[in-house]
């Protein structure tokens, strides 16, 4: 009796410290989550804080006199004349008119406010509308990148302002009068890469990513699912299949750059496929995602209860009918989830693409599987390494676009799992 009571006593006495221990243990868990969330939050605030200006462009709207004499042009349909015409002069003249106090002597400084490629915009507008010649039009052009940086980041130490005091005063005045404006950066979503940050766009990389992902999906999903079904349902259990299984698990852990080397050696050097094209990129990423898809598909097949197979077999279904009519449909949600996660991984991959030439300066938006292309993470990498400071915000903006794609893919995976998953 005495002994027992003292034991209950001991338990009661230790109770407090045990509760404390449990609370501490829980606190560690909360702390771990807080650290993870804090890191994520820092990442997001940094990227969004730096990058939101990337979604803005700075433009100059002015009345341009399309004077044929000034441009050495009397027939905009004549290709030779277009080649030799001066499309810069009307822009400079128009802007001088907008700036009170600016004269012909300031032309070099005024020209420094206009984007070097604005003349191309004017040329294209005139070749598309030859009847504009001799008229006066209100047109909107991109500003020079220096103006763009000044308008967005004046006073920010991270950026250096490359305008002189005279130009700054003009820009301030023009901004007040609404000649220089910032608006949504549609150029960013409608163009390819450029060495001029104001003109640089992400459409080329998005299209490149979609083409590459399409090739990856169309190859890795059927191959991965077929391999998983065979290994799970048909393959005999012996040393050889064990060996295959070990190798597949190994492949999932191989650094992705190795797949790039393999792609270079096999697809480009041996098969003679062109460099920098989405087909080769897709093939390399297929090799990389296959193990992930096979492993998750096998897990999905395994989770189908044996009673389903037995019931089907019991009413006389063949092995193939069992698999195709019962196991596969039930395992499909798990397979799709695994595939989407594998694809999301592939979407963020740059290392293997470096070796097959997809890390490249490509201006034209690709229009096929055999056109030179780059992908979203590569575009981020290229911009982040550019000497022009204005690319910092473009890189952060591109990261946001990439994250949007990744989040929506992962959300789709979760939604499908919730929606289609069956529990037994």
């Amino acid at each position: 009796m005495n002994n027992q009571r003292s034991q209950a006593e001991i338990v009661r006495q230790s109770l407090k410290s045990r509760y404390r221990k449990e609370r501490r243990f829980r606190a560690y868990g909360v702390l771990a989550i807080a650290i993870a969330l804090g890191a994520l939050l820092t990442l997001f605030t940094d990227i969004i804080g730096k990058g939101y200006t990337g979604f803005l462009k700075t433009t100059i709207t002015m009345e341009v006199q399309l004077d044929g004499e000034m441009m050495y042009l009397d027939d905009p349909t004549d290709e030779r004349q277009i080649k030799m015409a001066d499309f810069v002069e009307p822009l400079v003249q128009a802007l001088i008119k907008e700036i009170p106090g600016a004269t012909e002597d300031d032309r070099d400084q005024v020209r420094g406010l206009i984007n070097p490629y604005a003349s191309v915009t004017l040329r294209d507008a005139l070749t598309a509308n030859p009847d504009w010649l001799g008229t006066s039009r209100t047109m909107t052009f991109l500003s020079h990148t220096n103006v763009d940086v000044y308008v967005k980041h004046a006073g920010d130490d991270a950026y250096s302002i490359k305008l002189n005091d005279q130009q700054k005063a003009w820009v301030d005045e023009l901004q007040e009068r609404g000649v220089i404006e910032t608006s949504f950066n549609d150029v960013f979503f409608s163009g390819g890469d450029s060495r001029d940050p104001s003109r640089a766009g992400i459409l080329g990389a998005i299209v490149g990513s979609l083409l590459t992902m399409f090739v990856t999906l169309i190859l890795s999903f059927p191959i991965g699912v077929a391999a998983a079904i065979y290994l799970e349902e048909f393959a005999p259990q012996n040393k050889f299949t064990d060996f295959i299984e070990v190798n597949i698990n190994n492949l999932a852990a191989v650094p992705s750059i190795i797949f790039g080397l393999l792609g270079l050696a096999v697809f480009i050097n041996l098969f003679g496929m062109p460099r920098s094209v989405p087909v080769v990129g897709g093939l390399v990423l297929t090799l990389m995602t296959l193990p992930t898809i096979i492993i998750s598909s096998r897990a999905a097949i395994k989770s189908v209860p044996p009673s389903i197979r037995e019931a089907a077999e019991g009413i006389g279904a063949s092995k193939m009918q069992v698999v195709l009519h019962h196991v596969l449909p039930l395992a499909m949600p798990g397979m799709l989830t695994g595939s989407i996660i594998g694809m999301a991984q592939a979407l963020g991959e740059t290392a293997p693409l470096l070796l097959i030439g997809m890390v490249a300066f490509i201006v034209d938006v690709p229009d096929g599987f055999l056109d030179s292309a780059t992908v979203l993470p590569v575009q981020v990498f290229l911009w982040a390494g550019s000497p022009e400071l204005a690319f910092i915000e473009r890189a952060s903006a591109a990261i946001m676009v990439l994250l949007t794609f990744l989040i929506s893919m992962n959300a789709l995976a979760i939604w499908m799992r919730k929606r289609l998953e069956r529990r037994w």
Partner: protein
Amino acid sequence: MKLNKALATVALAGSVAAMSAPAMARDTISIVGSSTVYPFATVVAERFGTKTDFSTPKLESTGSGGGLKLFCQGIGTQHPDITNASRRMKTSEFELCQSNGVTDITEFRIGSDGIVIASSKEAENLDITLEQLFLALGSKVPVNGEWVANPNKNWSDVDSSLPNKPIRVMGPPPTSGTRDSFNELALAAGCDQLPEAANLSKDEHASICESVREDGAFIEAGENDNLIVQKLIGDEGMYGVFGYSFMEENSDRLQAATLNGKVPTAEAIAADDYPVARSLFFYVKKAHVGVVPGIQEYVSEFTSNAAMGQNGYLKDVGLIVPPRAALMDLMDKAENMPNLTLDELK
């Protein structure tokens, strides 16, 4: 059964997509090579793309050595047409090219790139040899035959002719190409002047001769050259390392140090008469001219007065353009595309 068919169709479509790739004609010029030339070549490529009906060339920054290796891999559209280099082709690379059937190559020397040590006009200007520069900035220097952590605090500790002021130099971070060139062309060259450097193994040479001291005398300033300029103007005891083009832009406020008795000027750099300068090149595979459309036109855009003239757009992005006479030679080369020979490289 339906699912079966669908699977088969998808698999078939996949394999067709995979098989139809080889032996494709290419209509985009493919350029590889040096990261130093990359910023210039991309600007030319983009201008070329907007000016002409050809598609914009594709550029990969692979480094000079990597570019030449790819370039010399063979003839055929899976291999690049042009490679950029921040050094001349080596004879071994030329031989690799020859053995892979890339026999006809044209070389273009497109200008140079120089690095200066600058200070405010108010400050005492440096007149320094590369050897002294290494002794001032190297992470390890020889003292009585032993390599020890750099003990020099003042410039005058290195040599009494130098100012009696603390050594303080701002420069670009290790990620920068300017820093690479500075390490290689200034520090390593200065290090090699020392008798002790002869005994270093190859690995030691790289780790000792090409590393900058990290005890606070050399300040990494980030990639923002403007910030260095601002610091130099505000602080007369500070020296800065950056590309020549930046010095030129700020020549009203800054002065450049004399290295090995040579003052950096655009002429001296273009003529290779300044120690911390190098020439930039690109090489064209002649067998691809006429096969891949636009190569000849791209080369003539690169060598045009609009690009490389005294008011050319490449000058705006920092290239030290060749003198007029050299540019005219380049233009002739672009028209005739003479073959590079092994004798020229020796």
